[in-house]
């Protein structure tokens, strides 16, 4: 078995989708001749041609809206938006059209559209390129929101998203494109319903997604060295949330740290915490804790950006407090 990168996994998923279904086509900025701003779509133009690998002008609202329209007309568009900050120019189309038409039309129309959107901080590209706004999209009924954090999900979530009759947003964290892993040859599909335990443990549950999952796993290593067994749960599906898997882990460890690169106020972490409070309150032995992005527009200076993002040490510290409360606090 050979390892492949997350980027290559995304590319293989796209290629397979294009081969399998003639209704599938790609639209986005610089996905063709340039090869994709993160090189995910490299080579696809040569293989599939300009009709199916469509370079678009810088017109986010128009080509995302066109993706919705093409889906209405029977195609299976996969639209790429370079960075979640730019998706805001298409927010109207996503929220007012893609998310509403099936319900508003009384079920006459489905929108089988996939949007791939890069997200997240860490690349020193400051406040208009680095945010994690997937939590906003997870607020919207009518959308499904995915966050592949491992190579296997990067490879196979797309097929599941295409098979879904709804608009599905796939958020690819920019810091993950270069991670490598071997794919299990026995696996050829993944679900897009359930969260997944990526590491078992009994002492504390760490919930995360995207690059936050990677950091939670790093925190679990730190904790393991101290004799604290953290369970790490990959949320994977941000909407609809898999509350059952979350509650199961809570019942097992009774202690919770939620990691979210998004801003704390009104965040996905707030939603998860509240679900635990509503449905798992009596399973808890300690208050809920969160490690979130600092509530600032992302600064350029590296030391400030690092301080603004969740880091393994901070996650470990939060977990340590819960698993081994300082004397006198409980």
């Amino acid at each position, binding site marked *: 078995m050979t390892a492949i990168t997350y980027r290559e996994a995304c590319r293989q998923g796209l290629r397979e989708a294009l081969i399998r279904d003639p209704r599938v086509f790609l639209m986005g900025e610089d996905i063709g001749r340039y090869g994709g701003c993160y090189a995910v779509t490299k080579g696809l133009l040569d293989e599939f041609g300009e009709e199916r690998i469509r370079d678009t002008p810088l017109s986010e609202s128009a080509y995302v809206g066109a993706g919705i329209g093409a889906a209405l007309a029977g195609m299976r568009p996969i639209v790429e938006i370079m960075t979640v900050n730019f998706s805001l120019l298409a927010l109207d189309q996503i929220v007012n059209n893609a998310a509403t038409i099936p319900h508003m039309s009384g079920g006459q129309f489905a929108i089988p559209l996939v949007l791939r959107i890069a997200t997240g901080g860490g690349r020193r590209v400051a406040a*208009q390129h680095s945010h994690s706004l997937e939590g906003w999209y997870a607020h919207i009924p009518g959308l499904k929101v995915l966050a592949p954090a491992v190579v296997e999900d990067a490879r196979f979530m797309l097929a599941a998203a295409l098979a879904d009759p709804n608009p599905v947003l796939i958020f690819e964290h920019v810091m993950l494109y270069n991670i490598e892993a071997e794919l299990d040859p026995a696996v050829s599909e993944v679900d897009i319903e359930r969260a997944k335990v990526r590491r078992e443990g009994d002492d504390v549950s760490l919930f995360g997604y995207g690059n936050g999952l990677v950091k939670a796993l790093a925190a679990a290593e730190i904790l393991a060295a101290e004799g604290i067994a953290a369970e790490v749960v990959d949320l994977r599906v941000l909407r609809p949330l898999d509350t059952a898997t979350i509650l199961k882990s809570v019942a097992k460890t009774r202690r919770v740290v939620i990691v979210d690169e998004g801003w704390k106020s009104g965040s996905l972490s707030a939603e998860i915490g509240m679900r635990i409070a509503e449905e798992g309150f009596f399973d808890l032995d300690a208050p809920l804790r969160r490690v979130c992005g600092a509530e600032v527009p992302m600064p350029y200076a590296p030391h400030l950006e690092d301080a603004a993002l969740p880091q393994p040490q901070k996650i470990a510290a939060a977990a340590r407090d819960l698993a081994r409360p300082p004397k006198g606090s409980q």
Partner: protein
Amino acid sequence: MNKVRLDHAHLHHLLRQMIRIRQFEAKCVELYQAQKILGFLHLYDGEEAVSVGVMEALRPEDAIVATYREHGQAIARGIGMDRLMAEMLGKLEGTCRGRGGSMHIFDRATRFYGGNAIVGGGLPLAVGIALGDKMQGRAAITASFFGDGAVEEGEFHESMNLASLWHLPLLFVCENNLYAMGMALERAEAETELVRKAAGYRMAGAAVDGMDVVAVEVAARAAADRIRGGEGPQFLECRTYRLRAHSMYDAQLYRTKEEVEAWRKKGPIVRFYGWLLDNGLIHDEEMRAIEAEADAEIEAAVAFAEAGSLEPVAELERFVTMDRVPA
């Protein structure tokens, strides 16, 4: 009428400004390779004549809105290289305390309203700045720089319409360098004569050779004069070329080396310098002196930036909201 002076001092000034920009950026490349500048770095190599020429038509009270490719505008506007370089290095002494970096230069003193990294994102702001100035009876105009790619965005069209409808003192400066990242203009625009967009908004428009600094200055002065004379917003398409990658890394699969080389020969500095030489308006030693002077200025800026400090992490949340409107 605000004529272009073709005297020796002015011509040398134009050359000096372009060289200052070019050499500042050459140093930025070095610092990027040394990983002192991080993130994205969009160079202006080949386009210097645009910001230098346009800036000559502006007055201190005028406002500027630029893009992420704004080192040229910032330097030509007169923002000190020391504070610019400190910003590039993420230092507290930078224009924005190191929070903005290369793509987000802001400078209140020179009415420099950013460095905007959302394509087209600066245009509506420029409309509002021009509106605010007009409503308060200020004689200022606003110059908004943007690329050919921005013309593809709805924000461009909405801004053109608003500016024209409200008769605002706004100069639209389109830096048409034929590419938006890897997207060639003719693959992105149904109408590639960008100057023709103006007519759709009943706005006066002109296209100029953006590789010719004097031509840009003449055209910008004419447009600025019309705005100041009450004729409303103007559209100026500057036809230029980006000689380097879009940002630092870019395989440039979308264009040929020959194409780039052909444009390099038409570069604004070689061309202007050649013209000055041919007309006996400069000597080789004068050119060397200008370069040496720029180098010295840049060395001092780097020293200033390197000696700078990091903003304390404790101040991270400062200015997320302001406690007052700065006077």
